[in-house]
């Protein structure tokens, strides 16, 4: 690590490996600091340190089982739903500096501020309208006019409005897979979260639906901080500004997407990106 690199990342000059390299000129929405995670006795994440930049897309890539989804699910404490899981380290959510994974932080706090879209579209067995309104109803919104407005706005953000505006009362299960996934995005956007987590959102979709969602992610970047897990390296290169490469539960390299894909510092990153393993 050179003096020049340290100068660009003053906030993260810990003893962490060279994995993290925050851009000082881009504000940070969350700081992951020496995060480790265990499923029972099995350690799935090892001392991960990296920034999540505000209003940027951060892509997490790596071979299957490398821990990228596990890492993503730490941000909204999804692991708390199952017994025997344990976190160590910190994820500081800015600007307040709340430690998301501290046992003292109620898991509802990050979940109310961070939205998530899952790998498989998982709409609720309700109408299209009620799916989008669900997050608002959870937050106690009852006013019909407010709900109507926010449902329309969210469906427009998710580029689904024109396709469903005439059948908001139809079951969400009547939609195609790609539409269902955009509905799930609208559902996550409706409460206007600060961060949006996307866990391989296009892995179950055909190329056209995938292109739709990639365009969407690019547009949403102006309003939201997005973290996206993807198997698809072209996708990471297309939609993200920052990329983290995971392998065996460790963050091998983190940097600006262009640098990762054109001039990786680690030979392992180079090998993965060029398809020599993974």
């Amino acid at each position, binding site marked *: 690590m050179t003096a020049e690199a340290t100068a660009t990342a003053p906030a993260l000059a810990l003893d962490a490996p060279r994995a993290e390299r925050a851009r000082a000129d881009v504000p940070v929405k969350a700081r992951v600091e020496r995060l480790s995670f265990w499923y029972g006795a099995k350690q799935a994440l090892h001392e991960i340190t990296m920034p999540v930049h505000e209003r940027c897309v951060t892509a997490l890539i790596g071979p299957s089982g490398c821990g990228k989804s596990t890492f993503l699910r730490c941000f*909204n404490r999804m692991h708390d739903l199952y017994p025997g899981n344990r976190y160590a380290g910190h994820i500081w959510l800015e600007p307040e500096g709340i430690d998301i994974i501290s046992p003292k932080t109620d898991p509802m706090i990050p979940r109310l501020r961070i939205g998530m879209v899952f790998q498989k579209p*998982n709409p609720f067995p309700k109408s299209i309208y009620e799916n989008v309104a*669900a*997050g608002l109803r959870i937050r106690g919104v009852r006013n019909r006019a407010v709900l109507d407005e926010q449902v329309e706005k969210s469906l427009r953000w998710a580029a689904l409005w024109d396709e469903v505006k005439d059948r908001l009362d139809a079951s969400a299960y009547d939609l195609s897979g790609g539409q269902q996934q955009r509905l*799930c995005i609208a559902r996550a956007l409706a409460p206007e979260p600060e961060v949006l987590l996307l866990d391989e959102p296009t892995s179950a979709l055909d190329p056209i639906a995938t292109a739709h969602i990639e365009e969407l992610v690019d547009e949403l970047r102006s309003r939201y901080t997005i973290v996206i897990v993807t198997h698809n390296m072209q996708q990471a290169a297309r939609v993200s500004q920052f990329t983290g490469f995971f392998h065996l539960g460790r963050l091998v390299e983190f940097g600006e997407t262009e640098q990762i894909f054109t001039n990786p510092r680690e030979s392992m990153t180079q090998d993965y990106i060029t398809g020599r393993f993974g």
Partner: protein
Amino acid sequence: MQALDRSLDRVRAARRRDLLFAALALLLLFVASLVLLGLILDLVLRGAPHLDLDFFTSFPSRRPSRAGILSAWVGTTLVMVVVAAVAIPLGVGAGIYLEEYARRNWLTDIVEINITNLAGVPSIIYGLLALGLFVHGAGFGESIFTAGLTLALLILPIVVVATREALRALPREMREGAFALGADRWQTVAMFLLPAAGPGILTGIIVGLSRAIGETAPVITVGALTFIAFLPPSPVGSEFPWVNFDWLWSPFTVLPIQMFNWVSRPQPAFHDLAAAAGVVLLVMTLAMNALAIYVRYRARRMLG
């Protein structure tokens, strides 16, 4: 050519075996359903001539021509109201707690084993328990309330197990989706899981109630009367507050007991009356099952 012959032999052998098995299965099916059909047919043929309005509006009598099932069907209805009011909230609540709230430890393991075993306890044992606990211990007497509690206890494991299984069958993505939106545990259960598990839970409830409606032994044990020529006090009155619960403490009889009483008489005319009451009981049970099937069918259509 030889290879083709060999595979043709295999196909022929396989067809023969399939045919043999299908014939055997069909035969067994016929035996089983014919016995049942015969029983029902006999019941209907003997009971049908008695099924007129008088039969439903008359009290039991020593003269078969004037005897009816008024007190029995009113008793059955009122007892079932108590059973439903007790068993549904208790059973569904316990199922939700065990599946969604309780942490897995030795205590919940014991509760779980016990509930499974309770479903296999002979119903007369519940009657004996209720005789000691409700009739004498708690002083509820030989009343509609006691019978309702007893039968509710009897079907509680059915409702609990059905609730748990309906909740467990929901995909974990649904739970995760709700929690990820910031829902608390109660919102997750009430807004998302219960509506989705509703048809399964309702099926369990109706299976339980159909079981309770036909039970005889525990109701006799807690002291249902076999001959009763009056109705319990009306639940709705003409004066404020227009409802009263005196009927809960009234002596009563139920359809299966009325049948039991008539069957044990020597005169054959009473046996036909028992058949008629049997038809009524059968129709009530079938109606509940039909309702369960309809509800499931509708729910499945809605979910696509």
